């Protein structure tokens, strides 16, 4: 295990004086400005310029925001693997993990706050606190998560973090962070799980489903960012050790995708078993217009089966272990699947007709009654969502520039702790 140890001096900042690095910063800033401009337009004009209405009150910004929030807690797992589960292979990546947790959550919260009807009243969320509101719990969960992740990062960044005498501190804050991240995603799932009025939600399984999804999407985003820094900034230097670690991450990614699909299957099967949920399941899976298509193509085909095939291989078709390219493709598919999943949860759940009059059909009513109401997101919503993603990426890039986040290279014997062959050896097969 000791061969994975990396000295403080090995961690370096990136991007100093680099043209592409400055171009990246400028590009991200442009997207953020576009997002802020979109938010300003929504705020001054009102939400009628969006695709949202009195039936679909949470739209695309919520899909982006929840994805980022869920991915934030998932991204922190790599640090937990190192500090809590003592997998030293991941120790060099723990700092990036903590930075990403903070950055993704900040990006998600930015979208969530700017999509409020009155974002100028955000402070009221702190001065007037309703202790029974799941939303209010989440305000607390997010605030503490950022604080804990910040402390965790501080402890990891300390020059003597690798000192055995400091191990208890690192482990202690790691356990707190792990517990809190589980609480956070449980709380996010409960935002939907506690909505008794809506047939698409109102289920305790929402909490573990969100936890599983956070593991999967957080890992996918982490893999994408790590590969981007490795291949564009050579930090950590690609090589045998990097491939071995990436192979390990890919294996975990496969497990998390499978775990998520398990909860998705259980959720739908339990609903299908109960006659009272027949209609909502029919809507979400068969005849709900766009929503079943997004479920089957986006969530199942692209978000579940594709990454599983890419990561785990298919006999005679796709060899294992996966190449780095396949791992990146799989992670991208998981991200697409995550958005599809959240689209189904957030928008599909609202689009489904509410059961206000059981046993009766609304034959005349308002636009928000009866039949599914369409939702076509507009450009400002999309730009706001992208602005959140760009903000998260900008925080990560700035942290990589200013702090010693990543080591020059991942050292250690790749075969020491696992039996996964080196990725570079297998890269000729498969894709």
């Amino acid at each position: 295990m000791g061969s994975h140890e990396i000295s403080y001096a090995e961690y370096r900042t990136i991007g100093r004086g680099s043209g592409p690095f400055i171009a990246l910063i400028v590009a991200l800033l442009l997207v953020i400005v576009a997002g802020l401009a979109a938010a300003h337009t929504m705020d001054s004009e009102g939400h009628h310029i969006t695709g949202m209405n009195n039936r679909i009150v949470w739209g695309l910004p919520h899909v982006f925001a929840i994805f980022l929030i869920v991915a934030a807690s998932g991204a922190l797992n790599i640090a937990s693997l190192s500090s809590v589960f003592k997998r030293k292979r991941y120790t060099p990546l723990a700092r990036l993990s903590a930075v990403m947790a903070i950055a993704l959550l900040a990006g998600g919260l930015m979208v969530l706050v700017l999509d409020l009807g009155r974002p100028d009243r955000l402070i009221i969320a702190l001065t007037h606190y309703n202790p029974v509101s799941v939303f209010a719990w989440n305000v607390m969960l997010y605030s503490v998560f950022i604080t804990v992740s910040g402390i965790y990062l501080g402890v990891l960044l300390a020059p003597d973090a690798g000192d055995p005498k400091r191990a208890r501190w690192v482990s202690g804050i790691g356990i707190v962070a792990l517990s809190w991240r589980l609480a956070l995603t449980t709380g996010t799932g409960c935002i939907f799980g506690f909505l008794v009025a809506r047939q698409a939600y109102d289920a305790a399984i929402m909490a573990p489903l969100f936890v599983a999804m956070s593991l999967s999407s957080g890992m996918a985003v982490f893999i994408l960012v790590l590969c981007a820094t490795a291949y564009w900034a050579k930090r950590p230097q690609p090589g045998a050790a990097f491939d071995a670690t990436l192979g390990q991450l890919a294996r975990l990614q496969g497990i998390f995708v499978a775990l998520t699909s398990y909860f998705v299957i259980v959720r739908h099967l339990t609903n299908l078993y109960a006659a009272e949920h027949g209609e909502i399941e029919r809507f979400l899976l068969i005849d709900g217009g766009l929503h079943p298509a997004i479920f089957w193509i986006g969530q199942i085909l692209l978000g579940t089966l594709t990454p599983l095939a890419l990561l785990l291989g298919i006999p005679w078709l796709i060899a294992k272990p996966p190449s780095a390219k396949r791992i990146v493709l799989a992670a991208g598919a998981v991200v697409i699947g995550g958005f599809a999943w959240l689209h189904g949860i957030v928008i599909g759940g609202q689009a489904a007709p509410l059961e206000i009059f059981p046993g009766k059909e609304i034959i005349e009513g308002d636009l928000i009654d009866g039949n599914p109401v369409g939702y076509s997101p507009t450009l400002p919503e999309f730009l706001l969502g992208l602005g959140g993603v760009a903000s998260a990426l900008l925080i990560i890039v700035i942290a990589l520039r200013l702090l010693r986040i990543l080591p020059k290279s991942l050292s250690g014997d790749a075969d020491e702790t696992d039996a996964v062959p080196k990725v570079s050896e297998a890269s000729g097969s498969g894709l």
Partner: protein
Amino acid sequence: MRGENDLPAPGDKEESFGSSGAGLGGDSESGEAFEALFAKRESADPSTPATEARRHFLIRIGALAAVSGIGGFAISRAIADERSSGEPVGAKIRYGLFVDADRCARGCDACVRACNEEHGLEPEHGIATDPQWIRKVTLLDRRSGRISTLPLMCQHCEEPPCVDVCPTGASFKRADGIVLVDKHICIGCRYCVMACPFQARSFVHEEVTDPKPWSPRGKGTVESCNFCVHRLDASKESEGSASRARPACVEACDTRGYRALVFGDLNDPLDPVARAIAERGGQGLRPDLALDTKVLYRGV
């Protein structure tokens, strides 16, 4: 929790001190005494039976003091004071609406238009972002084929999910049961809209151009039927008594001659709304959710 049709019998008290009285005195007489004391405190009208109860109380309290001593009396009075001062003002009143769908005319939207007029709503776009405090729906019973039409608005639940989920407490329930939104602390998160089982809430999607001074509205906040609370408060005769004013929709329905809506104090057995429910029967929507709604429907 009280069921939708479980109106109090004429002799019932809204709150009983029986338990605390029995707990202190250990006999049913002292329990009655405290009950009588409470009845007096809550009563605004001196001609009610509370005056008699007070007399009985004074006689009995003398006997009680002789048995349990002046200390027991002091403690019991202190507890009685604590309970009554902690009581929210007007908690005896439970405003409610009775909707007789058999009298509601298909195609008539007088209640909706009256509501829009009263609160300065502008639903002229004909799109799903328009504010809708009341909407008319026509239902087909899948089994019997029966068609019914009715107005649907905030059901003013006794256990309102919108109040539970509101992060800032902007969504709240008044002591008299009316569910409202405090427009000053609503941050526009729309979680209450998600939580409402009746889709009764609207989000203000654009600038309010014609605000009414009695009905504050604001872009970016959530709103819903408030039983025309400004009318109720303006015409309230005295503290503790129900207002004789009626919401605009009820008035409009009466003016059109349908009389499908009856409004009043559900806790007062002599009130027209309580009598209408007692005579014609009524049921809340989604009783399975146990929200104890205060809009009760007949003929749905």
